[in-house]
């Protein structure tokens, strides 16, 4: 069976997802400087930068990574690899329109939202046409399939909200915020990460022989939780939605247990940038869970905000940047050096990572993450701007490192 060598999409198609994703990351950090540590959930500037981060950075990079990974997992080539530049254009343009819409021109929101819906729809169609029956073969691909379904529902809900904000539709969009966020973050992003972690963590950690039951539980509980949350919205039941959140909490807990089980079976104990990034990511996830539980038990808005900050910037941010140090060298190596194997000396993947600069990125970003988190607790602007400054420097190191790896020759 011919696998992978003919299936990996060209670097030229995938690299814009990573570069633009990190540029959106920088943009969202810069944007946060316009806010103060006492943030309101309904502040449109805040919402604008959150969308820039989650769609422009998180989703763009995840889609780029999945474009490379899924053909290998599915053991078949992309049905329409030419769709990816279209997906990239739609999601990037849609993100920009959303940001401008939230900051200044609400009329642009519905256009931005619609373009993003179309971008995700094309991604979903390409995935279905590529995967076909193979999508049900493994837990990872099943998780990604459900995630695409939830992403579609969540982005359509978001688009409906943009119509409300723009005044095209008579409705109060704030009523849909929670279901929009839950469908996208838990049903979309978290489910994708649960699926991909089952492949990536053992692959990079050389882990074998671990029990996979926690991942099965995590998958089931999160799907159940999101469906329950949507049902609770339809029947307007807070009790059902609280139960749904508990189910999602247990799902994240089960995923954390799975990660610990994989870590304990690791065949390599190298504390490289990938490992350290994951350590910060999962520490943030655990802290975020704690804040979430506190908020659920009646904590104030700061607990929700802190939970979201630690989940978004801490867990998602470090999970993604850590994997970029593995995925980009591989893509570059595969395109430039794999044809030279056996003919001349080729570099190893770890030699294609700028280690010192990566350490700086990790260090500055970690300090920034936790200092800014403290600022949210104490509502202290000095800490807030200090934390953001560290995050910004870290993000500048990140774009330097990404371009350094992509230019490696």
């Amino acid at each position: 069976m011919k696998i992978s060598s003919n299936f990996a999409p060209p670097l030229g198609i995938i690299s814009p997802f990573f570069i633009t994703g990190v540029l959106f990351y920088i943009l969202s950090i810069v944007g946060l400087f316009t806010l103060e540590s006492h943030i309101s959930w309904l502040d449109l500037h805040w919402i604008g930068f959150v969308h820039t981060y989650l769609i422009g950075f998180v989703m763009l990079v995840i889609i780029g990574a999945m474009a490379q990974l899924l053909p290998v997992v599915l053991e078949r080539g992309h049905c329409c690899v030419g769709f990816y530049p279209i997906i990239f254009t739609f999601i990037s343009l849609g993100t920009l329109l959303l940001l401008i819409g939230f900051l200044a021109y609400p009329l642009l929101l519905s256009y931005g939202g619609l373009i993003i819906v179309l971008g995700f729809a094309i991604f979903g169609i390409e995935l279905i046409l590529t995967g076909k029956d193979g999508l049900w073969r493994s837990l990872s691909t099943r998780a990604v399939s459900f995630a695409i379904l939830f992403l579609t529902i969540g982005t359509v809900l978001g688009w409906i909200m943009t119509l409300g904000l723009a005044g095209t539709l008579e409705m109060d969009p704030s009523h849909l915020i929670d279901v929009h966020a839950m469908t996208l973050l838990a049903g979309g992003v978290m489910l994708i990460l649960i699926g991909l972690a089952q492949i990536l963590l053992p692959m990079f950690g050389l882990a074998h022989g671990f029990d996979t039951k926690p991942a099965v539980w995590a998958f089931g509980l999160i799907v159940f939780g999101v469906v329950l949350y949507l049902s609770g919205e339809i029947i307007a039941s807070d009790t059902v939605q609280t139960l749904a959140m508990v189910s999602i909490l247990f799902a994240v807990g089960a995923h954390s247990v799975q990660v610990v089980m994989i870590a304990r079976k690791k065949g390599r104990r190298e504390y490289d940038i990938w490992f350290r990034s994951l350590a910060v990511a999962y520490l943030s996830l655990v802290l975020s869970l704690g804040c979430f539980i506190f908020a659920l038990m009646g904590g104030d808005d700061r607990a929700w905000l802190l939970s979201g900050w630690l989940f978004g910037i801490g867990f998602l941010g470090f999970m993604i940047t850590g994997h970029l140090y593995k995925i980009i060298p591989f893509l570059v190596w595969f395109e430039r050096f794999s044809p030279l194997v056996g003919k001349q000396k080729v570099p190893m993947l770890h030699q294609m990572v700028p280690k010192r600069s990566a350490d700086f990125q990790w260090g500055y970003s970690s300090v920034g993450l936790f200092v800014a988190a403290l600022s949210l607790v104490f509502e202290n602007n000095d800490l807030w701007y200090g934390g953001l400054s560290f995050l910004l420097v870290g993000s500048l190191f990140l774009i330097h490192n990404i371009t350094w790896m992509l230019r490696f020759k």
Partner: protein
Amino acid sequence: MQSVTKEDVYAAISTVIDPEVGCNLVDLGLIYGADIDENNHVNVTMTLSTRGCPLHQSMIDWVKEAVEKIELVEGCDVEIVWEPEWNISMAAEHVKQSLGAGTGMW
């Protein structure tokens, strides 16, 4: 007829390096066997460190090319198997040490 030996085959495959781990495939314990028939056709049985390995096909090609470079070899087929499942204990001692396997909980 002069024949190719298993040692020749393993020596040739040990020139193939896993770029992620930085070790050769023989020392990693990925090569399960090599059969050489009377016509000096070689059948290599090997595994990969993970099922989702993006270098699946490349590894096969590199092993095949390396073996076919041996003088007298008339051809080489490479079969990937998943049983027994590979784990780090199958690697050579110096590979385990370089990867830090078995040192500490994490």
